[in-house]
């Protein structure tokens, strides 16, 4: 029983490692034969060389850690603020009809607008500095988290609420001890989805201008046809996405330990 389980786990890990290696292999073969022009698809080795060059000498006169730090700060601030506010309002909307009514029309009008479509407006309103970039990411995280938290709060069982009431719980206690934990599985899923979206919007937001950030590196490198640097930047963002997603997923399994085990 245990050995079958650990065998399944080993197979899982092996496949998870094998699949990116296969992609890398196909990529290497494609570029090695000279079938594709390096400016369209550079070889992995060339991308790696550019990456090491960026790590050692920075990009456009700025160290790679500064670029990375600028991007992470934007995502971090916007993600934290958007998730906090989105969860708070989403939970309230899920349980209090009046609050839901207040937010319904405005949020449903804003939600279908692609955040990228808001870029021109945000430039007009907040300029091309940090404010525009952070607000753009914040908005998309906020909207996703609000929807998830609201659905989570709605999923709370009637009997769970009634049990709390008949054990003397007040409104706040019901919220804290029953509604919030009931919504946690969907909140954690929302965090994973919105982190992915936040990174997407980050790159777009950094195209707004400025001279720092991974999005800037990608844009700048592409306008000078330095494709290897474009790839290095893209892969770096992808790696950030992978690490942050795995981290949230791991946290979710710890926090929402009861999910799927009832």
């Amino acid at each position, binding site marked *: 029983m245990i050995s079958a389980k650990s065998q399944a786990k080993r197979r899982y890990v092996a496949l998870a490692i094998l699949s990116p290696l296969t992609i890398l292999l196909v990529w290497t073969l494609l570029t090695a034969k000279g079938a594709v022009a390096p400016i369209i698809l550079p070889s992995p080795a060339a991308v790696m060389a550019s990456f090491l060059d960026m790590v050692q000498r920075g990009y456009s006169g700025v160290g790679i850690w500064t670029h990375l730090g600028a991007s992470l700060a934007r995502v971090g601030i916007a993600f934290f603020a958007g998730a906090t506010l989105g969860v708070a309002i989403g939970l309230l909307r899920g349980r209090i009809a009046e609050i839901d009514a207040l937010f319904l029309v405005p949020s449903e009008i804003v939600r279908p607008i692609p955040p990228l479509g808001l870029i021109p407006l945000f430039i007009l309103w907040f300029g091309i500095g940090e404010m525009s970039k952070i607000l753009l990411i914040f908005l998309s995280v906020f909207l996703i988290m609000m929807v998830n938290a609201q659905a989570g709060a709605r999923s709370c*069982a009637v*009997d*769970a609420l*009634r*049990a*709390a*009431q*008949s*054990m*003397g*719980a*007040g409104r706040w*206690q019901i919220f804290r*001890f*029953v509604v919030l*934990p009931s919504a*946690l599985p969907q909140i954690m899923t929302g965090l994973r989805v919105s982190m992915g979206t936040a990174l997407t919007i980050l790159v777009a937001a950094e195209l707004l201008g400025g001279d720092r950030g991974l999005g800037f590196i990608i844009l700048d490198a592409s306008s000078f046809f330095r494709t290897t640097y474009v790839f290095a930047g893209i892969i770096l963002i992808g790696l950030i996405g992978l690490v942050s997603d795995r981290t949230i997923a791991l946290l979710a399994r710890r926090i929402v*330990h*009861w999910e799927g*085990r*009832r």
Partner: protein
Amino acid sequence: MSIAAPVITLVSREGSERGDKPMDSSASVRPILKFEQVGFQYDGRAIMRDVSFAIRPGELVAVLGPSGCGKTTILNMVAGFLQPTEGAAIIDGQEITGPGPDRGVVFQAAALYDWMTVADNISFSLRCAGRPKAERRRVAEEMAALVNLTGFEDAYPYQLSGGMRQRVGLARVLAAKPKVMLMDEPFSALDVQTREALQEEVLRIRDRTGCTILFVTHSIDEAVFLGDRIFLLTDLTDGAYDEFAIDLPSPRANGENRLHPAFIRLRETIYRKMRH
């Protein structure tokens, strides 16, 4: 088959007649729970009309009937989840206006909090009342012992079997020291052995705590085994129901009672009445 004393009393009750009329042996005791000509409408449709009864402290009343007869509606009105549209539901002299810790509910599906340990589930009412941690732990351990769950205080509900989950549900209600315990078909989803063990457990707990219990069920056996009285409901729109007083040998928490001639006779009487 010889039975010394009459063990079955069948009293058919018509709506409004009873009102405040004292019932049987309850004449001298103030009822802990009372319905006074209670009516309930839902979506303009009358579910019940003119329902009256009185329950003495320490009594275990089984409310028996097929699904849709309004037995859960009665329980929900006592719990305060629903309000009567006519008449009044009264607990210990006070009209019921909403849920409160003086009326604990054991739900059919336990409705435990999977994010809390067994101990935290049991002592939830104390946490709501702002009691200190040490006291909560002490009460949780006491109640866990009362329902035979010692050693499982730090487990999570999803790690327990269905029967154990219902034991936690019982302990959680007992910890709040309610005036009335409301049980909404709590054992209907369990296997027979577990169900019978828990039924005996309920009677033992009642003997030890003196708790008043309103027990809703659709099982004749369960109602007869547990009840001091049975309210048999079929259609409450005219407030009429049948009442059976049960006098099985003491101690009631004895599985052998299921084989007692009185048990079998009462079961048959109710069965015929339900089929009638």
